[in-house]
Protein backbone atom coordinates (compact mmCIF):
# COMPACT_ATOMS: atom_id res chain seq x y z
CA UNK A 1 0.00 0.00 0.00
CA UNK A 2 2.80 2.38 0.98
CA UNK A 3 4.65 1.50 -2.21
CA UNK A 4 1.50 2.08 -4.26
CA UNK A 5 1.05 5.55 -2.75
CA UNK A 6 4.78 6.34 -2.99
CA UNK A 7 4.74 5.67 -6.68
CA UNK A 8 1.86 8.05 -7.20
CA UNK A 9 2.35 10.80 -4.64
CA UNK A 10 5.42 12.77 -3.49
CA UNK A 11 5.13 11.29 0.01
CA UNK A 12 8.90 11.20 0.63
CA UNK A 13 9.25 14.90 -0.16
CA UNK A 14 6.18 15.66 1.96
CA UNK A 15 7.61 13.69 4.89
CA UNK A 16 10.95 15.51 4.56
CA UNK A 17 9.09 18.83 4.50
CA UNK A 18 7.19 17.93 7.67
CA UNK A 19 10.46 17.00 9.41
CA UNK A 20 12.17 20.28 8.59
CA UNK A 21 13.80 21.71 11.72
CA UNK A 22 12.22 24.68 13.48
CA UNK A 23 14.18 27.52 15.09
CA UNK A 24 15.73 26.77 18.50
CA UNK A 25 14.14 27.76 21.84
CA UNK A 26 10.57 27.48 20.54
CA UNK A 27 8.19 27.30 23.50
CA UNK A 28 4.56 26.33 24.11
CA UNK A 29 3.34 29.73 22.93
CA UNK A 30 4.20 28.60 19.42
CA UNK A 31 1.43 25.97 19.66
CA UNK A 32 -1.33 28.62 19.80
CA UNK A 33 -1.66 28.75 16.01
CA UNK A 34 -2.15 24.99 15.83
CA UNK A 35 -4.72 25.20 18.63
CA UNK A 36 -6.63 27.89 16.70
CA UNK A 37 -6.59 25.61 13.65
CA UNK A 38 -7.84 22.70 15.77
CA UNK A 39 -10.70 24.83 17.10
CA UNK A 40 -11.63 26.00 13.61
CA UNK A 41 -11.93 22.36 12.51
CA UNK A 42 -13.86 21.42 15.67
CA UNK A 43 -16.27 24.33 15.10
CA UNK A 44 -16.71 23.37 11.45
CA UNK A 45 -17.40 19.72 12.32
CA UNK A 46 -19.75 20.35 15.27
CA UNK A 47 -21.50 23.08 13.26
CA UNK A 48 -21.99 20.76 10.29
CA UNK A 49 -23.57 18.18 12.61
CA UNK A 50 -25.79 20.75 14.37
CA UNK A 51 -27.10 21.78 10.94
CA UNK A 52 -28.75 18.33 10.68
CA UNK A 53 -31.38 19.49 13.16
CA UNK A 54 -31.53 23.24 12.65
CA UNK A 55 -34.00 25.28 10.65
CA UNK A 56 -33.24 28.98 10.04
CA UNK A 57 -36.70 30.47 10.34
CA UNK A 58 -38.22 32.45 13.22
CA UNK A 59 -41.03 29.88 13.49
CA UNK A 60 -38.66 26.94 13.91
CA UNK A 61 -35.20 28.07 15.05
CA UNK A 62 -35.86 28.27 18.80
CA UNK A 63 -37.82 25.00 18.85
CA UNK A 64 -35.10 23.30 16.82
CA UNK A 65 -32.40 24.40 19.27
CA UNK A 66 -34.57 23.29 22.20
CA UNK A 67 -35.05 19.95 20.44
CA UNK A 68 -31.28 19.59 19.95
CA UNK A 69 -30.60 20.43 23.59
CA UNK A 70 -33.29 18.28 25.18
CA UNK A 71 -34.30 15.44 22.86
CA UNK A 72 -31.52 14.48 20.47
CA UNK A 73 -29.00 12.03 21.99
CA UNK A 74 -25.68 13.86 22.61
CA UNK A 75 -27.41 17.07 21.43
CA UNK A 76 -26.59 19.13 24.52
CA UNK A 77 -22.98 17.88 24.33
CA UNK A 78 -22.53 18.75 20.65
CA UNK A 79 -24.12 22.17 21.12
CA UNK A 80 -22.00 22.70 24.22
CA UNK A 81 -18.80 21.86 22.31
CA UNK A 82 -19.79 24.35 19.59
CA UNK A 83 -20.77 27.08 22.06
CA UNK A 84 -17.73 26.83 24.35
CA UNK A 85 -15.53 26.19 21.31
CA UNK A 86 -16.55 29.62 19.97
CA UNK A 87 -15.43 31.32 23.18
CA UNK A 88 -12.21 29.29 23.25
CA UNK A 89 -11.58 30.25 19.64
CA UNK A 90 -11.69 33.98 20.45
CA UNK A 91 -9.37 33.50 23.45
CA UNK A 92 -6.85 31.35 21.56
CA UNK A 93 -6.82 33.61 18.47
CA UNK A 94 -6.21 36.70 20.64
CA UNK A 95 -3.45 34.90 22.60
CA UNK A 96 -1.90 33.83 19.29
CA UNK A 97 -1.96 37.46 18.14
CA UNK A 98 -0.35 38.59 21.42
CA UNK A 99 2.39 35.97 21.02
CA UNK A 100 3.17 37.38 17.57
CA UNK A 101 3.28 40.91 19.06
CA UNK A 102 5.43 39.70 21.98
CA UNK A 103 8.16 38.36 19.70
CA UNK A 104 7.45 40.96 16.97
CA UNK A 105 6.99 38.12 14.52
CA UNK A 106 4.90 40.36 12.26
CA UNK A 107 7.99 42.18 11.00
CA UNK A 108 9.58 41.68 7.58
CA UNK A 109 9.34 39.36 5.77
CA UNK A 110 6.17 38.16 7.56
CA UNK A 111 3.89 41.18 7.03
CA UNK A 112 1.51 39.22 4.80
CA UNK A 113 1.27 36.38 7.33
CA UNK A 114 0.20 39.00 9.90
CA UNK A 115 -2.34 40.68 7.60
CA UNK A 116 -4.03 37.38 6.80
CA UNK A 117 -3.99 36.56 10.50
CA UNK A 118 -5.79 39.81 11.38
CA UNK A 119 -8.33 39.12 8.62
CA UNK A 120 -8.88 35.71 10.24
CA UNK A 121 -9.50 37.44 13.59
CA UNK A 122 -12.23 39.49 11.88
CA UNK A 123 -13.72 36.32 10.41
CA UNK A 124 -13.73 34.71 13.87
CA UNK A 125 -15.61 37.72 15.28
CA UNK A 126 -17.94 37.48 12.27
CA UNK A 127 -18.63 33.86 13.16
CA UNK A 128 -19.50 34.95 16.71
CA UNK A 129 -21.79 37.76 15.58
CA UNK A 130 -23.68 35.71 12.98
CA UNK A 131 -23.77 32.61 15.20
CA UNK A 132 -25.49 33.93 18.24
CA UNK A 133 -28.58 35.07 16.33
CA UNK A 134 -29.27 31.48 15.30
CA UNK A 135 -30.93 30.18 18.53
CA UNK A 136 -33.48 33.01 18.05
CA UNK A 137 -33.83 33.66 21.77
CA UNK A 138 -34.02 37.03 23.51
CA UNK A 139 -30.24 37.40 23.74
CA UNK A 140 -29.85 36.46 20.08
CA UNK A 141 -32.45 38.95 18.92
CA UNK A 142 -31.54 41.94 21.04
CA UNK A 143 -27.76 41.57 20.71
CA UNK A 144 -28.25 41.51 16.93
CA UNK A 145 -30.57 44.53 17.04
CA UNK A 146 -27.83 46.49 18.84
CA UNK A 147 -25.05 45.09 16.62
CA UNK A 148 -26.83 46.07 13.41
CA UNK A 149 -27.68 49.51 14.82
CA UNK A 150 -23.97 50.00 15.53
CA UNK A 151 -23.24 49.28 11.88
CA UNK A 152 -25.94 51.76 10.84
CA UNK A 153 -24.08 54.64 12.49
CA UNK A 154 -21.23 54.38 9.97
CA UNK A 155 -21.14 57.63 8.00
CA UNK A 156 -22.59 57.61 4.51
CA UNK A 157 -23.34 53.95 3.89
CA UNK A 158 -24.35 53.01 7.47
CA UNK A 159 -28.08 52.84 6.85
CA UNK A 160 -27.56 50.92 3.62
CA UNK A 161 -25.20 48.44 5.33
CA UNK A 162 -27.69 47.89 8.15
CA UNK A 163 -30.50 47.22 5.67
CA UNK A 164 -28.31 44.74 3.79
CA UNK A 165 -27.39 43.00 7.06
CA UNK A 166 -31.03 42.75 8.13
CA UNK A 167 -32.33 42.04 4.65
CA UNK A 168 -34.81 44.87 5.22
CA UNK A 169 -35.75 47.42 7.80
CA UNK A 170 -36.16 45.08 10.74
CA UNK A 171 -34.74 41.85 12.05
CA UNK A 172 -36.85 38.90 10.99
CA UNK A 173 -36.98 35.84 8.77
CA UNK A 174 -34.71 37.29 6.07
CA UNK A 175 -32.11 38.34 8.66
CA UNK A 176 -32.03 34.90 10.24
CA UNK A 177 -31.76 33.24 6.85
CA UNK A 178 -28.83 35.40 5.71
CA UNK A 179 -27.02 35.18 9.05
CA UNK A 180 -27.33 31.38 8.77
CA UNK A 181 -25.96 31.47 5.21
CA UNK A 182 -23.07 33.71 6.30
CA UNK A 183 -22.35 31.55 9.36
CA UNK A 184 -22.45 28.19 7.61
CA UNK A 185 -21.42 28.86 4.02
CA UNK A 186 -19.75 32.22 3.33
CA UNK A 187 -17.63 32.60 6.46
CA UNK A 188 -16.39 28.97 6.54
CA UNK A 189 -15.26 29.21 2.89
CA UNK A 190 -13.61 32.54 3.63
CA UNK A 191 -12.00 31.20 6.82
CA UNK A 192 -10.53 28.10 5.21
CA UNK A 193 -9.32 30.17 2.24
CA UNK A 194 -7.61 32.66 4.55
CA UNK A 195 -6.18 29.85 6.69
CA UNK A 196 -4.78 28.26 3.54
CA UNK A 197 -2.98 31.47 2.56
CA UNK A 198 -1.89 32.12 6.17
CA UNK A 199 -0.46 28.59 6.49
CA UNK A 200 1.25 28.89 3.11
CA UNK A 201 3.07 32.01 4.34
CA UNK A 202 3.89 30.33 7.68
CA UNK A 203 5.51 27.39 5.85
CA UNK A 204 7.06 29.57 3.14
CA UNK A 205 8.81 31.97 5.50
CA UNK A 206 9.21 29.36 8.23
CA UNK A 207 8.47 29.88 11.90
CA UNK A 208 9.66 33.28 13.07
CA UNK A 209 11.28 31.84 16.17
CA UNK A 210 12.41 34.19 18.89
CA UNK A 211 14.02 37.55 18.06
CA UNK A 212 17.26 36.52 19.76
CA UNK A 213 17.74 33.47 17.50
CA UNK A 214 20.94 33.63 15.45
CA UNK A 215 20.68 32.69 11.75
CA UNK A 216 22.30 29.35 12.67
CA UNK A 217 19.77 28.72 15.46
CA UNK A 218 16.88 29.38 13.05
CA UNK A 219 17.63 26.08 11.30
CA UNK A 220 18.83 23.81 14.06
CA UNK A 221 15.86 23.36 16.42
CA UNK A 222 13.62 20.34 16.83
CA UNK A 223 11.78 19.03 13.76
CA UNK A 224 8.19 20.14 13.18
CA UNK A 225 7.12 16.48 13.03
CA UNK A 226 6.96 14.68 15.36
CA UNK A 227 8.36 16.95 18.11
CA UNK A 228 6.31 20.12 17.61
CA UNK A 229 3.23 18.22 16.43
CA UNK A 230 3.38 16.13 19.61
CA UNK A 231 3.29 19.28 21.76
CA UNK A 232 0.47 20.68 19.63
CA UNK A 233 -1.56 17.49 19.98
CA UNK A 234 -1.11 17.45 23.78
CA UNK A 235 -2.38 21.05 23.79
CA UNK A 236 -5.36 19.99 21.66
CA UNK A 237 -6.16 17.16 24.07
CA UNK A 238 -6.11 19.52 27.07
CA UNK A 239 -8.28 22.01 25.18
CA UNK A 240 -10.73 19.30 24.10
CA UNK A 241 -11.03 17.94 27.66
CA UNK A 242 -11.75 21.47 28.91
CA UNK A 243 -14.41 22.02 26.21
CA UNK A 244 -15.97 18.61 26.84
CA UNK A 245 -16.11 19.39 30.58
CA UNK A 246 -17.76 22.71 29.76
CA UNK A 247 -20.26 20.99 27.45
CA UNK A 248 -21.06 18.36 30.10
CA UNK A 249 -21.18 20.48 33.25
CA UNK A 250 -22.10 23.97 32.03
CA UNK A 251 -25.26 23.65 29.92
CA UNK A 252 -25.51 26.28 27.21
CA UNK A 253 -28.24 28.74 28.14
CA UNK A 254 -31.26 29.20 25.90
CA UNK A 255 -33.50 32.10 26.80
CA UNK A 256 -37.15 32.57 25.87
CA UNK A 257 -37.99 32.86 22.21
CA UNK A 258 -37.18 36.28 20.70
CA UNK A 259 -39.88 38.83 21.42
CA UNK A 260 -39.56 42.20 19.65
CA UNK A 261 -42.03 43.74 22.13
CA UNK A 262 -40.23 42.68 25.29
CA UNK A 263 -39.08 45.99 26.74
CA UNK A 264 -38.16 44.30 30.04
CA UNK A 265 -35.18 42.57 28.47
CA UNK A 266 -31.71 44.05 29.01
CA UNK A 267 -29.73 43.30 25.85
CA UNK A 268 -26.17 42.10 26.40
CA UNK A 269 -23.83 40.77 23.70
CA UNK A 270 -21.58 37.72 24.02
CA UNK A 271 -18.66 38.36 26.39
CA UNK A 272 -16.19 38.99 23.56
CA UNK A 273 -18.19 42.01 22.37
CA UNK A 274 -18.79 43.38 25.89
CA UNK A 275 -15.84 45.79 25.64
CA UNK A 276 -17.44 47.46 22.63
CA UNK A 277 -20.84 47.44 24.35
CA UNK A 278 -19.32 49.21 27.37
CA UNK A 279 -17.28 51.63 25.25
CA UNK A 280 -20.43 52.93 23.60
CA UNK A 281 -21.72 54.21 26.96
CA UNK A 282 -18.94 56.81 27.13
CA UNK A 283 -19.69 58.50 23.83
CA UNK A 284 -22.92 60.43 23.85
CA UNK A 285 -24.77 62.75 21.55
CA UNK A 286 -22.67 63.91 18.61
CA UNK A 287 -19.72 61.84 19.88
CA UNK A 288 -21.63 58.56 19.52
CA UNK A 289 -19.95 57.85 16.21
CA UNK A 290 -16.56 57.79 17.95
CA UNK A 291 -17.54 54.67 19.88
CA UNK A 292 -19.59 52.97 17.21
CA UNK A 293 -17.43 53.60 14.17
CA UNK A 294 -14.27 55.67 14.51
CA UNK A 295 -12.49 53.83 17.34
CA UNK A 296 -13.30 50.26 16.15
CA UNK A 297 -12.42 51.08 12.54
CA UNK A 298 -9.22 52.98 13.29
CA UNK A 299 -8.22 50.29 15.82
CA UNK A 300 -8.68 47.55 13.27
CA UNK A 301 -6.82 49.46 10.55
CA UNK A 302 -3.91 50.13 12.92
CA UNK A 303 -3.82 46.45 13.82
CA UNK A 304 -3.98 45.40 10.17
CA UNK A 305 -1.12 47.65 9.10
CA UNK A 306 0.96 47.27 12.26
CA UNK A 307 3.98 45.79 10.40
CA UNK A 308 4.20 48.95 8.28
CA UNK A 309 3.76 51.30 11.23
CA UNK A 310 6.31 49.65 13.51
CA UNK A 311 9.53 49.68 11.48
CA UNK A 312 11.88 49.27 14.45
CA UNK A 313 14.36 46.42 14.67
CA UNK A 314 12.97 43.07 15.69
CA UNK A 315 13.20 42.39 19.41
CA UNK A 316 11.01 41.17 22.30
CA UNK A 317 8.16 43.38 23.47
CA UNK A 318 9.71 44.49 26.76
CA UNK A 319 12.62 46.03 24.90
CA UNK A 320 10.21 48.16 22.83
CA UNK A 321 8.76 50.73 25.29
CA UNK A 322 6.23 52.29 22.89
CA UNK A 323 4.91 48.96 21.62
CA UNK A 324 4.83 47.62 25.19
CA UNK A 325 2.84 50.65 26.41
CA UNK A 326 0.35 50.57 23.53
CA UNK A 327 -0.16 46.78 23.78
CA UNK A 328 -0.54 46.92 27.58
CA UNK A 329 -3.02 49.80 27.36
CA UNK A 330 -5.06 47.96 24.72
CA UNK A 331 -5.11 44.68 26.69
CA UNK A 332 -5.88 46.35 30.04
CA UNK A 333 -8.45 48.61 28.39
CA UNK A 334 -10.27 45.76 26.65
CA UNK A 335 -10.20 43.53 29.77
CA UNK A 336 -11.40 46.40 32.00
CA UNK A 337 -14.20 47.35 29.60
CA UNK A 338 -15.23 43.68 29.34
CA UNK A 339 -15.40 43.37 33.13
CA UNK A 340 -17.28 46.66 33.44
CA UNK A 341 -19.68 45.62 30.69
CA UNK A 342 -20.25 42.21 32.24
CA UNK A 343 -20.83 43.51 35.74
CA UNK A 344 -22.83 46.61 34.78
CA UNK A 345 -26.15 46.78 36.54
CA UNK A 346 -29.20 45.96 34.54
CA UNK A 347 -31.85 48.63 34.23
CA UNK A 348 -34.25 48.75 37.13
CA UNK A 349 -37.55 50.45 36.48
CA UNK A 350 -40.48 51.05 38.74
CA UNK A 351 -43.40 49.33 37.18
CA UNK A 352 -46.35 51.60 36.88
CA UNK A 353 -49.43 49.47 36.97
CA UNK A 354 -51.99 51.32 34.94
CA UNK A 355 -55.33 50.54 36.48
CA UNK A 356 -57.48 52.77 34.43
CA UNK A 357 -58.09 51.51 30.96
CA UNK A 358 -58.49 54.16 28.35
CA UNK A 359 -60.54 52.83 25.53
CA UNK A 360 -60.38 54.93 22.38
CA UNK A 361 -62.54 52.40 20.59
CA UNK A 362 -65.48 53.24 22.87
CA UNK A 363 -66.13 56.17 20.57
CA UNK A 364 -66.99 53.70 17.87
CA UNK A 365 -70.48 52.51 18.52
CA UNK A 366 -70.92 48.82 18.18
CA UNK A 367 -67.27 48.01 18.72
CA UNK A 368 -66.65 45.34 21.29
CA UNK A 369 -64.83 46.16 24.50
CA UNK A 370 -61.12 45.74 23.88
CA UNK A 371 -59.39 42.98 25.73
CA UNK A 372 -56.99 44.00 28.45
CA UNK A 373 -54.38 41.55 29.57
CA UNK A 374 -52.58 42.07 32.87
CA UNK A 375 -48.97 40.86 32.85
CA UNK A 376 -47.32 39.39 35.94
CA UNK A 377 -44.86 42.24 36.42
CA UNK A 378 -47.67 44.69 37.08
CA UNK A 379 -47.45 46.73 33.90
CA UNK A 380 -50.72 46.64 32.02
CA UNK A 381 -50.75 45.62 28.39
CA UNK A 382 -53.62 46.73 26.23
CA UNK A 383 -54.77 44.99 23.16
CA UNK A 384 -57.11 47.26 21.26
CA UNK A 385 -57.01 45.24 18.10
CA UNK A 386 -60.40 44.51 16.61
CA UNK A 387 -61.55 41.41 14.85
CA UNK A 388 -62.58 41.71 11.21
CA UNK A 389 -66.20 41.28 12.29
CA UNK A 390 -65.93 44.13 14.79
CA UNK A 391 -64.38 46.39 12.15
CA UNK A 392 -67.22 45.54 9.72
CA UNK A 393 -69.79 46.36 12.43
CA UNK A 394 -68.08 49.67 13.19
CA UNK A 395 -68.02 50.61 9.48
CA UNK A 396 -71.70 49.72 9.11
CA UNK A 397 -72.62 51.86 12.13
CA UNK A 398 -70.63 54.79 10.75
CA UNK A 399 -72.26 54.45 7.34
CA UNK A 400 -75.72 54.37 8.95
CA UNK A 401 -74.92 57.53 10.91
CA UNK A 402 -73.87 59.33 7.73
Amino acid at each position, binding site marked *: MRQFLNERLPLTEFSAHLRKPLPKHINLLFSLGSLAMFLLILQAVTGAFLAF*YYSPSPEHAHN*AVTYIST*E*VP*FGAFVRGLHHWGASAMVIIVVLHLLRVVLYSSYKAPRELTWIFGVLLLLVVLGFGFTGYLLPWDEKAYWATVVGVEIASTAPGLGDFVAKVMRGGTEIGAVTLSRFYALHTIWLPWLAFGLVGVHLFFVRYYGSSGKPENTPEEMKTGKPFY*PDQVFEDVVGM*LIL*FVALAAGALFMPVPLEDVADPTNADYDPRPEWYFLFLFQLLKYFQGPFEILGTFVIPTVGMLLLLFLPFLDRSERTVLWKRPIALTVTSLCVVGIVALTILGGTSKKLETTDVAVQETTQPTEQIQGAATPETEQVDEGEAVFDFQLTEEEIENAVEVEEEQQ
Partner: protein
Amino acid sequence: MEKRGRRSFLEIITAFIGGIISLAAGIPLIGFAISPAFKKAESKWVDLGLADRLKNSRFKKVDYTFTAKDGWVQATKKRSVYVTDVGNGEWSVFSRICSHLGCLVRWDEKQESFLCPCHGAIFDKTGAVIAGPPPEPLQKLETKVEAGILYVKET
Protein backbone atom coordinates in the same frame (compact mmCIF):
# COMPACT_ATOMS: atom_id res chain seq x y z
CA MET B 1 19.85 5.88 17.34
CA GLU B 2 18.42 6.89 20.70
CA LYS B 3 17.03 10.07 19.16
CA ARG B 4 15.41 8.06 16.39
CA GLY B 5 13.79 5.76 18.96
CA ARG B 6 12.46 8.78 20.81
CA ARG B 7 11.05 10.23 17.59
CA SER B 8 9.28 6.96 16.74
CA PHE B 9 7.83 6.94 20.25
CA LEU B 10 6.61 10.52 19.80
CA GLU B 11 5.01 9.59 16.47
CA ILE B 12 3.10 6.72 18.11
CA ILE B 13 1.97 8.84 21.08
CA THR B 14 0.93 11.67 18.73
CA ALA B 15 -1.16 9.28 16.63
CA PHE B 16 -2.63 7.77 19.82
CA ILE B 17 -3.69 11.17 21.23
CA GLY B 18 -5.06 12.17 17.83
CA GLY B 19 -7.09 8.95 17.81
CA ILE B 20 -8.41 9.60 21.33
CA ILE B 21 -9.59 13.11 20.39
CA SER B 22 -11.18 11.82 17.17
CA LEU B 23 -13.02 9.07 19.03
CA ALA B 24 -14.11 11.31 21.92
CA ALA B 25 -15.56 13.81 19.46
CA GLY B 26 -16.56 11.36 16.74
CA ILE B 27 -18.67 8.92 18.79
CA PRO B 28 -21.07 11.57 20.17
CA LEU B 29 -21.21 13.31 16.78
CA ILE B 30 -22.11 10.14 14.92
CA GLY B 31 -24.59 9.17 17.65
CA PHE B 32 -26.10 12.64 17.32
CA ALA B 33 -26.49 12.29 13.55
CA ILE B 34 -27.82 8.73 13.34
CA SER B 35 -30.05 8.72 16.45
CA PRO B 36 -33.32 9.11 14.46
CA ALA B 37 -32.69 5.63 13.01
CA PHE B 38 -33.07 4.16 16.51
CA LYS B 39 -36.17 6.11 17.44
CA LYS B 40 -39.23 3.92 17.80
CA ALA B 41 -42.12 5.06 15.65
CA GLU B 42 -45.16 5.99 17.72
CA SER B 43 -48.38 4.29 16.72
CA LYS B 44 -51.82 5.75 17.18
CA TRP B 45 -55.40 5.06 16.16
CA VAL B 46 -56.71 7.51 13.59
CA ASP B 47 -60.39 7.76 12.68
CA LEU B 48 -61.32 7.42 9.04
CA GLY B 49 -64.97 8.31 9.52
CA LEU B 50 -68.30 6.65 10.21
CA ALA B 51 -68.10 2.98 9.31
CA ASP B 52 -71.59 3.07 7.78
CA ARG B 53 -70.57 5.76 5.32
CA LEU B 54 -67.42 3.85 4.36
CA LYS B 55 -69.20 0.54 3.80
CA ASN B 56 -68.61 -0.47 0.23
CA SER B 57 -67.91 -3.79 -1.42
CA ARG B 58 -65.55 -1.98 -3.80
CA PHE B 59 -62.40 -0.20 -2.83
CA LYS B 60 -62.87 3.41 -1.82
CA LYS B 61 -60.02 5.87 -1.77
CA VAL B 62 -59.90 7.70 1.55
CA ASP B 63 -57.57 10.59 2.39
CA TYR B 64 -57.16 11.54 6.02
CA THR B 65 -54.96 13.65 8.25
CA PHE B 66 -53.60 13.29 11.76
CA THR B 67 -51.14 15.17 13.91
CA ALA B 68 -47.82 13.67 14.92
CA LYS B 69 -44.52 14.93 16.28
CA ASP B 70 -42.03 15.52 13.49
CA GLY B 71 -38.76 16.53 15.15
CA TRP B 72 -39.56 19.81 16.91
CA VAL B 73 -42.83 20.33 15.00
CA GLN B 74 -46.31 19.05 15.77
CA ALA B 75 -47.08 18.36 12.13
CA THR B 76 -50.27 17.55 10.29
CA LYS B 77 -49.58 14.44 8.24
CA LYS B 78 -51.60 13.41 5.21
CA ARG B 79 -52.22 9.79 4.27
CA SER B 80 -54.18 8.02 1.58
CA VAL B 81 -55.59 4.47 1.80
CA TYR B 82 -58.00 2.15 -0.02
CA VAL B 83 -60.86 0.91 2.15
CA THR B 84 -63.40 -1.83 1.66
CA ASP B 85 -65.53 -3.90 4.00
CA VAL B 86 -65.18 -7.59 3.42
CA GLY B 87 -68.26 -8.58 5.42
CA ASN B 88 -68.75 -9.93 8.95
CA GLY B 89 -67.51 -6.60 10.34
CA GLU B 90 -64.10 -7.15 8.78
CA TRP B 91 -62.33 -4.36 6.91
CA SER B 92 -59.51 -4.25 4.38
CA VAL B 93 -57.53 -1.03 4.52
CA PHE B 94 -54.46 -0.88 2.29
CA SER B 95 -51.79 1.76 2.34
CA ARG B 96 -51.39 3.28 -1.13
CA ILE B 97 -47.61 3.27 -0.74
CA CYS B 98 -46.09 0.74 -3.14
CA SER B 99 -43.87 -1.72 -1.26
CA HIS B 100 -41.26 -1.38 -4.02
CA LEU B 101 -40.06 2.24 -3.92
CA GLY B 102 -42.83 4.25 -2.34
CA CYS B 103 -44.91 5.54 -5.28
CA LEU B 104 -48.70 5.69 -4.72
CA VAL B 105 -50.70 2.82 -6.24
CA ARG B 106 -54.11 3.23 -7.94
CA TRP B 107 -57.06 0.83 -7.86
CA ASP B 108 -58.18 -0.31 -11.28
CA GLU B 109 -61.75 -1.52 -11.21
CA LYS B 110 -61.56 -3.37 -14.54
CA GLN B 111 -58.44 -5.36 -13.66
CA GLU B 112 -59.47 -5.55 -9.98
CA SER B 113 -55.88 -4.75 -9.14
CA PHE B 114 -53.74 -2.05 -7.62
CA LEU B 115 -51.37 -0.62 -10.25
CA CYS B 116 -48.17 1.23 -9.52
CA PRO B 117 -47.38 4.07 -11.99
CA CYS B 118 -43.60 3.84 -11.45
CA HIS B 119 -42.20 0.39 -12.24
CA GLY B 120 -45.26 -1.56 -13.33
CA ALA B 121 -46.04 -3.35 -10.07
CA ILE B 122 -49.48 -5.00 -9.84
CA PHE B 123 -51.13 -6.14 -6.60
CA ASP B 124 -54.38 -8.11 -6.33
CA LYS B 125 -57.28 -7.16 -4.09
CA THR B 126 -55.70 -8.94 -1.13
CA GLY B 127 -52.56 -6.80 -1.61
CA ALA B 128 -50.45 -9.71 -2.88
CA VAL B 129 -47.93 -9.06 -5.66
CA ILE B 130 -49.09 -10.30 -9.06
CA ALA B 131 -46.42 -8.71 -11.23
CA GLY B 132 -43.50 -6.35 -11.11
CA PRO B 133 -40.55 -5.87 -8.80
CA PRO B 134 -42.08 -5.35 -5.28
CA PRO B 135 -40.61 -7.77 -2.74
CA GLU B 136 -43.61 -7.55 -0.41
CA PRO B 137 -47.38 -7.19 -0.58
CA LEU B 138 -49.12 -3.87 0.02
CA GLN B 139 -49.18 -2.87 3.68
CA LYS B 140 -52.52 -3.79 5.27
CA LEU B 141 -53.37 -1.47 8.14
CA GLU B 142 -54.79 -2.70 11.43
CA THR B 143 -58.41 -1.59 11.92
CA LYS B 144 -61.03 -1.38 14.62
CA VAL B 145 -64.58 -0.06 14.85
CA GLU B 146 -65.65 1.76 17.96
CA ALA B 147 -68.91 3.65 18.44
CA GLY B 148 -69.58 3.20 14.74
CA ILE B 149 -66.30 4.88 13.76
CA LEU B 150 -63.66 3.10 11.70
CA TYR B 151 -60.12 3.56 12.99
CA VAL B 152 -56.77 2.57 11.44
CA LYS B 153 -53.52 2.17 13.28
CA GLU B 154 -50.94 4.68 12.10
CA THR B 155 -47.32 3.91 12.70
